[in-house]
Protein backbone atom coordinates (compact mmCIF):
# COMPACT_ATOMS: atom_id res chain seq x y z
CA UNK A 1 0.00 0.00 0.00
CA UNK A 2 2.82 2.35 0.93
CA UNK A 3 4.47 1.74 -2.43
CA UNK A 4 1.22 2.50 -4.22
CA UNK A 5 0.90 5.81 -2.39
CA UNK A 6 4.52 6.68 -3.19
CA UNK A 7 3.94 5.74 -6.84
CA UNK A 8 0.89 7.97 -6.95
CA UNK A 9 2.67 10.94 -5.36
CA UNK A 10 5.72 10.57 -7.64
CA UNK A 11 3.80 10.44 -10.88
CA UNK A 12 1.34 13.11 -9.79
CA UNK A 13 4.33 15.39 -9.24
CA UNK A 14 5.75 14.41 -12.62
CA UNK A 15 2.47 15.28 -14.33
CA UNK A 16 2.26 18.55 -12.46
CA UNK A 17 5.78 19.80 -13.15
CA UNK A 18 6.34 18.60 -16.71
CA UNK A 19 5.77 21.13 -19.45
CA UNK A 20 5.53 19.52 -22.85
CA UNK A 21 5.93 15.85 -22.01
CA UNK A 22 8.33 13.31 -23.45
CA UNK A 23 11.95 13.90 -22.47
CA UNK A 24 10.99 16.97 -20.42
CA UNK A 25 9.99 14.60 -17.63
CA UNK A 26 13.31 12.73 -17.54
CA UNK A 27 15.03 14.97 -14.91
CA UNK A 28 12.09 14.77 -12.47
CA UNK A 29 11.80 11.00 -12.89
CA UNK A 30 15.53 10.58 -12.40
CA UNK A 31 15.37 12.44 -9.08
CA UNK A 32 12.33 10.56 -7.85
CA UNK A 33 12.57 7.07 -9.32
CA UNK A 34 16.33 6.56 -9.36
CA UNK A 35 17.80 8.75 -6.61
CA UNK A 36 15.04 8.95 -4.01
CA UNK A 37 13.06 5.71 -4.17
CA UNK A 38 15.60 3.49 -5.98
CA UNK A 39 12.78 1.80 -7.92
CA UNK A 40 14.98 1.52 -11.00
CA UNK A 41 18.55 2.21 -12.05
CA UNK A 42 19.35 5.07 -14.39
CA UNK A 43 19.97 2.59 -17.21
CA UNK A 44 16.59 1.00 -16.66
CA UNK A 45 14.91 4.41 -16.73
CA UNK A 46 16.58 5.30 -20.02
CA UNK A 47 15.53 1.89 -21.29
CA UNK A 48 11.90 2.67 -20.39
CA UNK A 49 12.18 5.83 -22.45
CA UNK A 50 13.45 4.03 -25.51
CA UNK A 51 10.73 1.40 -25.17
CA UNK A 52 8.21 4.21 -24.69
CA UNK A 53 9.41 5.65 -27.97
CA UNK A 54 9.12 2.45 -29.93
CA UNK A 55 5.63 1.55 -28.77
CA UNK A 56 2.50 3.47 -29.77
CA UNK A 57 1.00 5.99 -27.38
CA UNK A 58 2.10 9.01 -25.39
CA UNK A 59 5.68 8.49 -24.17
CA UNK A 60 5.02 9.90 -20.69
CA UNK A 61 2.17 7.43 -20.17
CA UNK A 62 4.25 4.53 -21.42
CA UNK A 63 7.02 5.32 -18.92
CA UNK A 64 4.56 5.67 -16.03
CA UNK A 65 2.86 2.38 -16.91
CA UNK A 66 6.23 0.66 -17.15
CA UNK A 67 7.47 1.85 -13.72
CA UNK A 68 4.14 1.07 -12.08
CA UNK A 69 3.95 -2.41 -13.56
CA UNK A 70 7.47 -3.24 -12.47
CA UNK A 71 6.68 -2.42 -8.83
CA UNK A 72 3.12 -3.56 -8.32
CA UNK A 73 1.94 -5.32 -11.50
CA UNK A 74 -1.34 -4.17 -13.02
CA UNK A 75 -2.50 -2.21 -9.96
CA UNK A 76 0.77 -0.29 -9.97
CA UNK A 77 0.52 0.41 -13.69
CA UNK A 78 -2.99 1.80 -13.32
CA UNK A 79 -2.13 3.88 -10.23
CA UNK A 80 0.99 5.43 -11.85
CA UNK A 81 -0.86 6.26 -15.08
CA UNK A 82 -3.83 7.70 -13.23
CA UNK A 83 -1.52 9.86 -11.12
CA UNK A 84 0.31 11.16 -14.20
CA UNK A 85 -2.93 12.11 -15.92
CA UNK A 86 -4.74 13.63 -12.94
CA UNK A 87 -2.98 17.07 -12.82
CA UNK A 88 -3.77 17.61 -16.53
CA UNK A 89 -7.35 16.57 -16.00
CA UNK A 90 -7.83 19.02 -13.11
CA UNK A 91 -5.91 21.98 -14.55
CA UNK A 92 -7.28 21.75 -18.08
CA UNK A 93 -10.86 21.34 -16.86
CA UNK A 94 -10.45 24.47 -14.73
CA UNK A 95 -8.86 26.47 -17.57
CA UNK A 96 -11.46 25.32 -20.10
CA UNK A 97 -14.39 26.17 -17.84
CA UNK A 98 -13.01 29.64 -17.11
CA UNK A 99 -11.90 30.38 -20.67
CA UNK A 100 -15.36 30.10 -22.20
CA UNK A 101 -16.54 32.89 -19.87
CA UNK A 102 -13.55 35.09 -20.64
CA UNK A 103 -13.81 34.71 -24.42
CA UNK A 104 -16.56 37.35 -24.58
CA UNK A 105 -14.12 40.09 -23.59
CA UNK A 106 -12.48 42.11 -26.36
CA UNK A 107 -9.04 42.06 -24.66
CA UNK A 108 -9.07 38.27 -24.29
CA UNK A 109 -10.01 37.88 -27.95
CA UNK A 110 -7.06 40.03 -29.06
CA UNK A 111 -4.74 38.04 -26.81
CA UNK A 112 -6.07 34.70 -28.10
CA UNK A 113 -5.57 35.84 -31.71
CA UNK A 114 -1.97 36.73 -30.86
CA UNK A 115 -1.53 33.39 -29.09
CA UNK A 116 -2.72 31.53 -32.18
CA UNK A 117 -0.07 33.29 -34.26
CA UNK A 118 2.48 32.20 -31.65
CA UNK A 119 1.25 28.60 -31.90
CA UNK A 120 1.74 28.67 -35.67
CA UNK A 121 5.32 29.88 -35.19
CA UNK A 122 6.08 27.27 -32.51
CA UNK A 123 4.67 24.50 -34.72
CA UNK A 124 6.85 25.61 -37.64
CA UNK A 125 9.83 25.18 -35.36
CA UNK A 126 8.62 21.75 -34.14
CA UNK A 127 8.13 20.51 -37.72
CA UNK A 128 11.50 21.90 -38.77
CA UNK A 129 13.33 20.22 -35.87
CA UNK A 130 11.42 16.97 -36.37
CA UNK A 131 12.13 16.94 -40.10
CA UNK A 132 15.81 17.68 -39.57
CA UNK A 133 16.11 14.85 -37.04
CA UNK A 134 14.29 12.33 -39.22
CA UNK A 135 16.44 13.27 -42.22
CA UNK A 136 19.65 12.94 -40.21
CA UNK A 137 18.72 9.48 -38.93
CA UNK A 138 17.38 8.20 -42.22
CA UNK A 139 19.07 5.20 -43.87
CA UNK A 140 16.91 5.36 -46.99
CA UNK A 141 16.79 9.09 -47.76
CA UNK A 142 15.22 8.86 -51.22
CA UNK A 143 12.51 6.44 -50.14
CA UNK A 144 11.77 8.42 -46.98
CA UNK A 145 11.43 11.63 -49.03
CA UNK A 146 8.97 9.80 -51.32
CA UNK A 147 6.92 8.59 -48.35
CA UNK A 148 6.91 12.13 -46.97
CA UNK A 149 5.78 13.66 -50.29
CA UNK A 150 3.06 11.10 -50.93
CA UNK A 151 1.75 11.42 -47.36
CA UNK A 152 1.74 15.21 -47.63
CA UNK A 153 -0.11 15.18 -50.96
CA UNK A 154 -2.60 12.68 -49.53
CA UNK A 155 -3.47 14.83 -46.51
CA UNK A 156 -3.28 18.28 -48.14
CA UNK A 157 -5.15 17.62 -51.40
CA UNK A 158 -7.07 14.39 -50.92
CA UNK A 159 -7.98 15.12 -47.27
CA UNK A 160 -7.23 11.53 -46.30
CA UNK A 161 -7.44 10.88 -42.57
CA UNK A 162 -4.28 10.61 -40.45
CA UNK A 163 -5.22 7.14 -39.16
CA UNK A 164 -5.46 5.92 -42.76
CA UNK A 165 -2.11 7.46 -43.75
CA UNK A 166 -0.30 5.87 -40.79
CA UNK A 167 -1.95 2.48 -41.47
CA UNK A 168 -1.04 2.61 -45.16
CA UNK A 169 2.62 3.48 -44.47
CA UNK A 170 2.72 0.76 -41.82
CA UNK A 171 1.42 -1.80 -44.34
CA UNK A 172 3.93 -0.60 -46.95
CA UNK A 173 6.78 -0.97 -44.44
CA UNK A 174 5.67 -4.47 -43.44
CA UNK A 175 5.79 -5.32 -47.16
CA UNK A 176 9.30 -3.90 -47.42
CA UNK A 177 10.39 -5.91 -44.39
CA UNK A 178 9.06 -9.19 -45.87
CA UNK A 179 10.68 -8.42 -49.22
CA UNK A 180 14.07 -7.74 -47.61
CA UNK A 181 13.85 -10.98 -45.65
CA UNK A 182 13.05 -13.10 -48.65
CA UNK A 183 15.96 -11.60 -50.56
CA UNK A 184 18.39 -12.53 -47.79
Amino acid at each position, binding site marked *: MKILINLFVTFFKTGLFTFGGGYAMLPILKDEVVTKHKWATEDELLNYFSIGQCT*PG*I*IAVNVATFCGYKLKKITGAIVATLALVLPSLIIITLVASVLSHFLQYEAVLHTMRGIRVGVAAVLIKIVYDLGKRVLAQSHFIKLDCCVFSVALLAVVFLKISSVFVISAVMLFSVGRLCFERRRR
Partner: protein
Amino acid sequence: MIFVKLFYEFFLIGLFAIGGGAMTIPFLFDLSDKYHWFTAQEVTNMVAISESTPGPIGINMATYAGYNTAGILGGIIATTGLVMPSLIIIILVSRALKTFECNPNFNFLLKSLQPAVVALVLNATIQIAQLSLNSLLPFLIFAFILIFMRFYKTGSVFYIMLAGVIGYALKL
Protein backbone atom coordinates in the same frame (compact mmCIF):
# COMPACT_ATOMS: atom_id res chain seq x y z
CA MET B 1 -23.58 7.72 -27.22
CA ILE B 2 -21.25 10.69 -27.52
CA PHE B 3 -19.16 9.18 -24.72
CA VAL B 4 -18.69 5.93 -26.63
CA LYS B 5 -17.62 7.89 -29.71
CA LEU B 6 -15.26 10.08 -27.65
CA PHE B 7 -13.67 7.01 -26.08
CA TYR B 8 -13.33 5.26 -29.44
CA GLU B 9 -11.82 8.24 -31.25
CA PHE B 10 -9.29 9.02 -28.53
CA PHE B 11 -8.41 5.33 -28.20
CA LEU B 12 -7.51 5.45 -31.90
CA ILE B 13 -5.40 8.57 -31.34
CA GLY B 14 -3.58 6.85 -28.47
CA LEU B 15 -2.89 3.91 -30.75
CA PHE B 16 -1.79 5.86 -33.83
CA ALA B 17 -0.16 9.03 -32.47
CA ILE B 18 3.32 7.56 -32.31
CA GLY B 19 5.71 9.81 -30.44
CA GLY B 20 2.92 11.75 -28.76
CA GLY B 21 2.95 15.50 -28.20
CA ALA B 22 2.46 17.48 -31.41
CA MET B 23 1.50 14.24 -33.17
CA THR B 24 -1.99 14.47 -31.61
CA ILE B 25 -2.74 17.71 -33.51
CA PRO B 26 -3.37 16.19 -36.99
CA PHE B 27 -5.82 13.73 -35.44
CA LEU B 28 -7.69 16.54 -33.69
CA PHE B 29 -8.07 18.34 -37.04
CA ASP B 30 -9.49 15.12 -38.49
CA LEU B 31 -12.00 15.04 -35.62
CA SER B 32 -13.05 18.66 -36.20
CA ASP B 33 -13.88 17.69 -39.81
CA LYS B 34 -15.64 14.49 -38.94
CA TYR B 35 -17.84 15.33 -35.95
CA HIS B 36 -18.09 19.11 -35.51
CA TRP B 37 -17.32 18.59 -31.83
CA PHE B 38 -15.08 21.64 -32.08
CA THR B 39 -13.93 23.97 -34.85
CA ALA B 40 -10.46 24.01 -36.40
CA GLN B 41 -9.91 27.36 -34.68
CA GLU B 42 -10.65 25.76 -31.32
CA VAL B 43 -7.99 23.14 -32.07
CA THR B 44 -5.49 26.02 -32.24
CA ASN B 45 -6.72 27.27 -28.84
CA MET B 46 -6.26 23.74 -27.51
CA VAL B 47 -2.66 23.63 -28.71
CA ALA B 48 -1.95 26.98 -27.06
CA ILE B 49 -3.49 25.95 -23.74
CA SER B 50 -1.89 22.50 -23.75
CA GLU B 51 1.54 23.95 -24.45
CA SER B 52 1.25 26.53 -21.67
CA THR B 53 -0.09 24.34 -18.87
CA PRO B 54 1.80 21.57 -17.10
CA GLY B 55 1.33 17.94 -18.11
CA PRO B 56 2.04 15.94 -21.27
CA ILE B 57 0.58 17.80 -24.28
CA GLY B 58 -1.32 14.82 -25.69
CA ILE B 59 -3.18 14.34 -22.41
CA ASN B 60 -3.95 18.05 -22.05
CA MET B 61 -5.41 18.06 -25.56
CA ALA B 62 -7.58 15.01 -24.90
CA THR B 63 -8.92 16.53 -21.69
CA TYR B 64 -9.61 19.89 -23.36
CA ALA B 65 -11.24 18.34 -26.42
CA GLY B 66 -13.36 16.02 -24.29
CA TYR B 67 -14.40 18.84 -21.96
CA ASN B 68 -15.30 21.09 -24.88
CA THR B 69 -17.43 18.35 -26.39
CA ALA B 70 -19.22 16.87 -23.40
CA GLY B 71 -18.22 18.58 -20.13
CA ILE B 72 -16.21 17.14 -17.26
CA LEU B 73 -17.20 13.52 -17.94
CA GLY B 74 -16.24 14.04 -21.58
CA GLY B 75 -12.76 15.17 -20.49
CA ILE B 76 -12.33 12.12 -18.29
CA ILE B 77 -13.52 9.70 -20.97
CA ALA B 78 -11.41 11.17 -23.77
CA THR B 79 -8.32 11.04 -21.55
CA THR B 80 -9.04 7.45 -20.51
CA GLY B 81 -9.44 6.51 -24.16
CA LEU B 82 -6.11 8.11 -25.06
CA VAL B 83 -4.24 6.38 -22.25
CA MET B 84 -5.78 2.92 -22.64
CA PRO B 85 -3.70 1.66 -25.63
CA SER B 86 -0.45 2.54 -23.81
CA LEU B 87 -1.62 0.83 -20.65
CA ILE B 88 -2.57 -2.36 -22.48
CA ILE B 89 0.47 -2.49 -24.77
CA ILE B 90 3.05 -1.74 -22.07
CA ILE B 91 1.53 -4.28 -19.67
CA LEU B 92 1.63 -6.91 -22.43
CA VAL B 93 5.21 -5.99 -23.33
CA SER B 94 6.29 -6.16 -19.67
CA ARG B 95 4.67 -9.55 -19.28
CA ALA B 96 6.09 -11.02 -22.44
CA LEU B 97 9.69 -10.03 -21.92
CA LYS B 98 11.83 -9.77 -18.82
CA THR B 99 14.34 -7.43 -20.33
CA PHE B 100 12.77 -5.68 -23.26
CA GLU B 101 14.86 -4.24 -25.99
CA CYS B 102 13.36 -2.73 -29.08
CA ASN B 103 12.86 -5.52 -31.57
CA PRO B 104 14.88 -4.57 -34.70
CA ASN B 105 11.99 -5.31 -37.05
CA PHE B 106 9.58 -3.31 -34.96
CA ASN B 107 12.08 -0.50 -34.67
CA PHE B 108 12.43 -0.51 -38.46
CA LEU B 109 8.65 -0.20 -38.85
CA LEU B 110 8.39 2.74 -36.48
CA LYS B 111 11.33 4.50 -38.10
CA SER B 112 9.80 4.09 -41.53
CA LEU B 113 6.64 5.79 -40.25
CA GLN B 114 8.50 8.94 -39.27
CA PRO B 115 8.51 10.69 -42.67
CA ALA B 116 4.71 10.30 -42.76
CA VAL B 117 4.51 11.68 -39.23
CA VAL B 118 6.43 14.78 -40.33
CA ALA B 119 4.01 15.20 -43.26
CA LEU B 120 0.98 14.97 -40.94
CA VAL B 121 2.32 17.50 -38.46
CA LEU B 122 3.34 19.81 -41.34
CA ASN B 123 -0.20 19.64 -42.70
CA ALA B 124 -1.61 20.52 -39.26
CA THR B 125 0.83 23.43 -39.09
CA ILE B 126 -0.31 24.71 -42.50
CA GLN B 127 -3.93 24.53 -41.36
CA ILE B 128 -3.19 26.47 -38.18
CA ALA B 129 -1.15 29.04 -40.10
CA GLN B 130 -3.99 29.54 -42.60
CA LEU B 131 -6.42 30.17 -39.75
CA SER B 132 -4.29 32.59 -37.79
CA LEU B 133 -2.39 34.46 -40.55
CA ASN B 134 -5.41 35.94 -42.31
CA SER B 135 -4.08 39.47 -42.84
CA LEU B 136 -0.86 41.51 -42.87
CA LEU B 137 -0.59 42.29 -39.14
CA PRO B 138 -0.69 38.69 -37.87
CA PHE B 139 1.76 37.78 -40.61
CA LEU B 140 4.19 40.45 -39.41
CA ILE B 141 3.89 39.23 -35.81
CA PHE B 142 4.47 35.68 -37.06
CA ALA B 143 7.63 36.74 -38.91
CA PHE B 144 8.84 38.65 -35.85
CA ILE B 145 8.37 35.61 -33.58
CA LEU B 146 10.20 33.36 -36.04
CA ILE B 147 13.17 35.75 -36.21
CA PHE B 148 13.07 36.20 -32.44
CA MET B 149 13.26 32.39 -32.06
CA ARG B 150 16.53 32.27 -33.94
CA PHE B 151 18.21 34.73 -31.60
CA TYR B 152 16.61 33.97 -28.26
CA LYS B 153 16.25 30.28 -27.50
CA THR B 154 13.81 29.30 -24.76
CA GLY B 155 10.69 27.15 -24.21
CA SER B 156 7.65 27.24 -26.51
CA VAL B 157 5.48 28.73 -23.76
CA PHE B 158 7.48 31.95 -23.84
CA TYR B 159 6.98 32.50 -27.60
CA ILE B 160 3.27 31.75 -27.36
CA MET B 161 2.83 34.16 -24.44
CA LEU B 162 4.90 36.83 -26.19
CA ALA B 163 2.66 36.56 -29.24
CA GLY B 164 -0.36 36.86 -26.93
CA VAL B 165 1.01 40.06 -25.36
CA ILE B 166 1.76 41.55 -28.80
CA GLY B 167 -1.72 40.59 -29.98
CA TYR B 168 -3.23 42.34 -26.98
CA ALA B 169 -1.03 45.43 -27.32
CA LEU B 170 -1.74 45.87 -31.04
CA LYS B 171 -5.45 44.98 -30.69
CA LEU B 172 -5.07 42.19 -33.23
